């Protein structure tokens, strides 16, 4: 049934409500697609077909009674960083390969309460550390897109690379992601889908495996912004179990989509015009500016003077917090343990065997910048520069409503083109990191293909809790771009 793979999350929801399709047949079609494609894509770490069928049957019962939440019967994938009660949760790390949480994360509990059907746990970079999804202990994910002139395996981006690939290939209608420095927006751009990193505090972090606590934020990834809006409304909300969660009402995000941009002031941050920026990325950015202008927005040149310090600040803050958060993986209460005669010997052997190279490198750097004699020089200074970065955004948002930038400095690249220098890898996040440091919301929409046939995304950044404004502007870009291309590897066959 190829047409079952043509649904968006929103159109599937409407067809389910109208009883034109059943949740079970929709779920079966997606499970079949996973069987057919995912041995190759490797977007799932753990598949949960039995759980999915059971949830789908319950959704059909609710729908038959004329009930059911806003995601009732919708097949979803869950990034394997969200604790799911009774289902293995690995964070793509060997050290958690046998961890079965006895509790549920708030975000996934919210999605289940609204009737979401969970097809499984999606692959990611180990502990969400990476921009390629090649650092997973469960193997890399293949991007379903291909270069037009080559059969090379491309990266889906990271860290939510499994989420990006599964949505793009039509294996799920939506997926959760988490974004610490761009981990929703960059893979969304690489996979030709939409993704939103909401304001820090908008979604609860309870039950999400922590990487850098002051930055981590959950968000939706789906084919369209309408789909993301529906999911975000379900995921978001105040949670007493997370002290950084913010107690403000969740608006009707879907209703904001049609607001348009007439009279909206759109800022173009001049510091994002990097020397040596790929001309195709620059051209797409100009195209985005033209689309918003045609729809009635006013374009304003703005300055975010500390932009160039975003990446080094991010790496100090994120690595320091990671070294602290990952101290809990010691092989005592959970996880894979290595047996040794002494306690320290056991810790050292357990952590040496359990963590991959990227995670080890980040823990070591984080430990270094927090260690005696270096704390002030590195961590404290970075926190001060972070204040300046947030102030840059606050000043810009006195003049404009949203900022428009490219999402990533390139399209998806090959597994074997991955830069070996860690700093070159970090540069993937150059456009996404500043919004993460500031805590403001940002999204990515697919806006076109590059000359090699892979998707490119545009990013919109907004004021605290103004996700609705972002959705309105994003929807204008989405409609103008009319991105209907499909990847080579897709459940419904190639377009």
């Amino acid at each position: 049934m190829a047409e079952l793979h043509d649904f968006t999350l929103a159109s599937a929801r409407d067809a389910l409500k109208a009883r034109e399709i059943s949740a079970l047949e929709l779920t079966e079609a997606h499970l079949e697609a996973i069987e057919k494609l995912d041995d190759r894509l490797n977007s799932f770490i753990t598949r949960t077909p039995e759980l999915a069928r059971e949830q789908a049957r319950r959704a059909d019962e609710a729908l038959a009674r004329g009930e059911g939440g806003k995601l009732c019967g919708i097949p979803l994938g869950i990034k394997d960083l969200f604790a799911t009660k009774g289902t293995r949760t690995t964070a793509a790390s060997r050290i958690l390969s046998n961890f079965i949480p006895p509790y549920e994360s708030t975000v996934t509990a919210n999605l289940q309460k609204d009737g979401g059907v969970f097809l499984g746990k999606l692959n990611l970079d180990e502990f969400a550390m990476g921009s390629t999804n090649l650092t997973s202990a469960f193997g890399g994910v293949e991007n379903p897109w291909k270069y037009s002139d080559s059969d090379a395996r491309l990266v889906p981006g990271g860290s939510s690379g499994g989420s990006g690939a599964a949505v793009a290939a039509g294996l799920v209608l939506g997926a959760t992601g988490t974004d610490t420095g761009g981990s929703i927006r960059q893979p969304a751009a690489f996979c030709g889908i939409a993704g939103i990193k909401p304001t820090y505090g908008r979604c609860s972090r309870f039950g999400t495996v922590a990487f850098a606590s002051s930055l981590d934020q959950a968000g939706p990834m789906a084919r369209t912004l309408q789909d993301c809006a529906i999911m975000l409304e379900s995921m978001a909300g105040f949670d007493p179990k997370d002290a950084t969660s913010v107690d403000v009402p969740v608006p009707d995000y879907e209703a904001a989509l049609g607001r348009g941009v007439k009279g909206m002031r759109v800022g173009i941050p001049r510091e994002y015009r990097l020397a040596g920026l790929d001309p195709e990325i620059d051209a797409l950015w100009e195209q985005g500016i033209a689309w918003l202008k045609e729809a009635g927005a006013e374009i304003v040149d703005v300055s975010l003077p500390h932009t160039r310090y975003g990446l080094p600040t991010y790496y100090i803050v994120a690595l320091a917090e990671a070294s602290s958060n990952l101290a809990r993986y010691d092989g005592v209460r959970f996880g894979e343990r290595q047996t040794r005669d002494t306690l320290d010997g056991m810790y050292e052997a357990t952590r040496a065997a359990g963590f991959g190279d990227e995670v080890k490198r980040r823990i070591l750097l984080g430990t270094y910048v927090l260690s005696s004699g270096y704390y002030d020089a590195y961590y404290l200074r970075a926190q001060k520069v972070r204040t300046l970065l947030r102030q840059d955004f606050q000043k810009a948002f006195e003049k404009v409503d949203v900022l428009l930038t490219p999402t990533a400095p390139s399209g998806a690249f090959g597994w074997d083109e991955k830069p070996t220098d860690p700093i070159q890898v970090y540069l993937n996040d150059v456009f996404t990191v500043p919004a993460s440091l500031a805590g403001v919301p940002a999204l990515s929409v697919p806006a076109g293909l590059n000359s090699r046939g892979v998707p490119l995304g545009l990013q919109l950044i907004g004021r605290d809790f103004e996700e609705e404004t972002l959705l309105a502007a994003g929807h204008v870009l989405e409609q103008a771009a009319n991105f209907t291309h499909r990847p080579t590897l897709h459940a419904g066959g190639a377009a």
Partner: protein
Amino acid sequence: MSLDAKTVARIARLARIGLEDDEVATIQGQMEGILGWVDQLNEVNVEDVPPMVGTGLAQPHLRQDMVTDGDCREAVLSNAPDRVGPFFTVPKVVE
């Protein structure tokens, strides 16, 4: 930024990550590179700038001083790699 092997070994011990000698040399080079790159933050004038410890958006919440959870010993122990009765085990630390 120069970082000697002794410092890397000390940091690895603080982080409780066992490293082989050849790993120390590789990581030493990578850490030096990254720390050299972040040194550009020294160009920024941060005098009188307060450190950012959060966005300031979340308000502290008080709750009733009462037990909200409990009696979940089996759940807490359910992932223990090694346990004896109701206890986690560790290698002997006291002679």
